[in-house]
């Protein structure tokens, strides 16, 4: 009898099967998530937890029978006698339950971890065009195997390679084998003929000398594994989130914008390690705030979009040199802007912001009453549209309902085969 302690074996043997299952269920889970994200709070949705997916694509069909006359023997008879007829409806009739029959049909429930969930959720999204890559010094150098070398640290000796070369050299130089010498010695010991002995002894002498001359392993044979340090490209990016928090923004609009940024936020923190996010909120003046204030802090006042753009421009100048950073910006607003500000806004945008950004998205949030196409073009929308017509690389979308957030987000950040000028 053997007793084996398997507890230390690597666990999660089923991990791969689980991943295969998720891969297969991807479309279904994504569909389910999209649907729930319209009703539920995004934060909750992204928490993962139990999901239910329709069994359709995941079915494991078998030939099964149903209906027909059935006979069964069951235990626990208390009062029935032969010939009784029991009513069909109701459990009292005594028809046994059929496990697994009703349960399997409608939906399959299981628990997803948060990571799995977000992975599936944001699967086909990508930050647009991370073309400019900047090699940063720290933590981005990796060692890579790069063949063999004749010098190096003893720790890196490649024994296999060394012995192979030594063997090749010994064969090439005809180093006598130990068995050959042993044979000769044996022959010498047995030999009685003096002349023959002399010949053998000489031969043996020569062989032994040769063995001494040709070492078993020569320093020439030794090889070391060579490693090269390869700089790993790390893309750094900074994402500016601009939002209008002025009085003209209703709670509903803020909610829409918040949802958009939340998605953005989860997406960014998920996909890129080296992404910095700057939150700028503005009324008639702009300030850089932390994430919490950005989403939840109260503020009110007029609307001057240029203030936010100016603030962003200052921050870029001070902290994020365009040579080192890929700069992305997303702006959310209800479209109100004072007319006097248009000129300044367009100048700031075209001269200061767009030249240094990779991508600038504008999200116009409207009231829930009208669909996106009923909204009259706002002052900011017309301004941006004019700029876009002049060739400025802007992406613009209108959103007026929660349910549109995800599609719009997906549309803006859809993984594209190659860069494509986004035109709305």
């Amino acid at each position: 009898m053997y007793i084996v302690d398997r507890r230390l074996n690597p666990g999660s043997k089923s991990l791969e099967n689980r991943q295969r299952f998720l891969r297969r269920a991807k479309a279904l889970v994504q569909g389910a998530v999209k649907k729930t994200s319209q009703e539920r709070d995004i934060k909750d949705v992204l928490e993962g937890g139990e999901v239910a997916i329709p069994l359709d694509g995941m079915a494991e069909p078998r030939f099964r029978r149903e209906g027909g006359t059935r006979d069964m023997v069951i235990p626990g008879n208390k009062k029935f006698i032969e010939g009784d007829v029991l009513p069909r409806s109701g459990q009292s009739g005594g028809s046994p339950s059929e496990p697994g029959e009703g349960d399997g049909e409608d939906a399959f429930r299981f628990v997803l971890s948060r990571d799995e969930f977000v992975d599936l959720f944001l699967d086909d999204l990508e930050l647009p065009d991370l073309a400019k890559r900047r090699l940063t010094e720290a933590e981005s150098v990796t060692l890579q195997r790069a063949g063999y070398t004749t010098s190096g640290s003893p720790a890196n000796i490649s024994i296999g390679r060394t012995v192979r070369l030594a063997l090749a050299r010994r064969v090439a130089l005809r180093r006598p084998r130990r068995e050959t010498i042993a044979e000769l010695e044996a022959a010498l010991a047995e030999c009685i003929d003096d002349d023959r002995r002399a010949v053998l002894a000489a031969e043996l002498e020569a062989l032994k000398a040769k063995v001494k001359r040709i070492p078993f392993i020569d320093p020439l044979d030794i090889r070391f594994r060579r490693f090269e340090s390869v700089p790993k490209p790390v893309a750094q990016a900074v994402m500016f989130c601009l939002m209008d928090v002025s009085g003209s923004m209703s709670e509903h609009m803020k909610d829409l914008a918040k949802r958009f940024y939340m998605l953005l936020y989860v997406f960014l923190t998920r996909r890129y390690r080296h992404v910095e996010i700057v939150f700028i909120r503005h009324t008639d003046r702009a300030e850089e705030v932390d994430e919490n204030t950005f989403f939840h802090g109260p503020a009110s006042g007029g609307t001057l979009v240029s203030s936010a753009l100016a603030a962003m421009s200052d921050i870029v100048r001070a902290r994020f040199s365009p040579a080192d950073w890929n700069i992305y910006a997303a702006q959310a607003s209800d479209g109100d802007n004072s007319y006097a500000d248009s000129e300044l806004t367009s100048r700031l945008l075209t001269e200061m912001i767009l030249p240094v950004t990779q991508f600038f998205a504008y999200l116009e949030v409207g009231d829930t009453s009208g669909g996106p196409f009923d909204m009259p073009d706002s002052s900011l929308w017309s301004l941006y549209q004019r700029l876009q017509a002049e060739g400025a690389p802007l992406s613009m979308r209108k959103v007026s309902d929660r349910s549109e957030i995800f599609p719009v987000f997906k549309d803006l950040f859809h993984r594209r085969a190659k860069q494509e000028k986004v035109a709305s």
Partner: protein
Amino acid sequence: MTATGGRLFEGADWDFQALQRIHDACEEVALDELGLEVYPNQIEVITAEQMLDAYSSVGMPLFYKHWSFGKQFAHQETFYRKGLMGLAYEIVINSSPCISYLMEENTATMQTLVIAHAAFGHNHFFKNNYLFKQWTDADGILDYLDFAKNYIAQCEERHGRLAVEMTLDAAHALMSHGIDRYPGKKKLDLRAEEKRAGDRRQHEESAFNDLWRTVPTGKVKTRSALSAERRRTLLGLPQENILYFLEKTAPRLQPWQREILRIVRHIAQYFYPQSQTKVMNEGTATYVHYRIMSRLHEQGRLSDGNFLEFLQSHTNVVFQPGFDDQRFSGFNPYALGFAMMQDIERIVTKPDEEDREWFPDIAGKGDAMAVLRDVWANYRDESFISQFLSPRLMRHFRMFHLHDDPTEAGILVDAIHNERGYRRIRRELARQYDVGYIDPNIEVVDVDLAGDRRLMLRHAVVKGAQLQETDTKRVLQHLADLWTYDVSLVEVDTSGNVLKEYVVSPRAVSAAA
């Protein structure tokens, strides 16, 4: 070892020396007193997480990768984390050496119970029951699973994960119809055939009588009928092992696809005896652990407290709720099996008049273990119940037989546990465990080789139970994808009327796969 060699362990904790002592003590009782014959044991201690892992790969220590196991794992994990489901105390594998998995969190008493139950009870059954002997190869199974796992991984590397997955999906859908139900035909041997042919010729010559020529014969079979018959014979039709038929004759399968079908078929075959012997297998193991534990307690090697702990979990295991109980979900194989084994022991040692009348062969024979060992070796659930279910047990379980005909107004109580009903109840209960009745009877009947190469299947409908439509269409779709031509299935009742016909065409993609 002395019979009262002190306690095996104290309290609830165990260590590996204790496991060794427990095993040796159990072995002594099992081999010397019960006369069991077992494969060498290998006991593996695992964690709860590893137990969950094992669950989702049908209990085997190594298995190929497939999403459906992941699905099962996700499902079970959900239940387990919610606390809706406890894990089994053990899993035992029909292999040589016989591997039993023990959960690390079991108490020492539970480990003793599990070792007695799995490492001796199940192990003896695996080694001696005729079904397992006939259908499974305990020495080779682990190697075969290893081969299967590597082979499928290689296929994935070479032909792409998707193609392999599609083949496996299809094979799994047909798994329940990839089983040989009867021992294989012996290979034809040329010399024996020649001898047979010679004998026949000689017989014809010796029995020659020219008069036979003048006797009028029936209608000569037409040429087309003859060729159809010949074609069916060549294809080995009708064939109920659909996977085998596909493996051998599907026209456009790649060699690796045939091998995958073969792997799935072999694994289905390996599990075939287990589904036929649930009651007996668990009954044997439960009876054995009960005997061993009681003996250990008698010898003083188990303390009274530990024995009570054992009795508590034993009674939980063999609990049979009545049909109107919330916990009822059919017969508990542990309860029924254990009760029948104990009953046989009673009949053999202390029979009453009724037993002598019902079981003349074994009543009062005296040696209970010899009778039980013979039963364990030579029966399966269906035959076991139809032979050994005694009237006393039917009364004990208060069994009754319901006949549910959807055309009638209500459900008829057809028989209860009385003189008139005993035999009927026993027959019906045995039938409930008969695989021939459980699985739908579907056969490949013909292939239209002259026409559009359609594969024709037939479901022989028993008692009006037709196939579930959505699932059937899905399975047929998989089948058509493998066959790469149309597939049809007719459902025929006992009088030959066609009740329903399905025709499915293959999906375009798979033809190229």
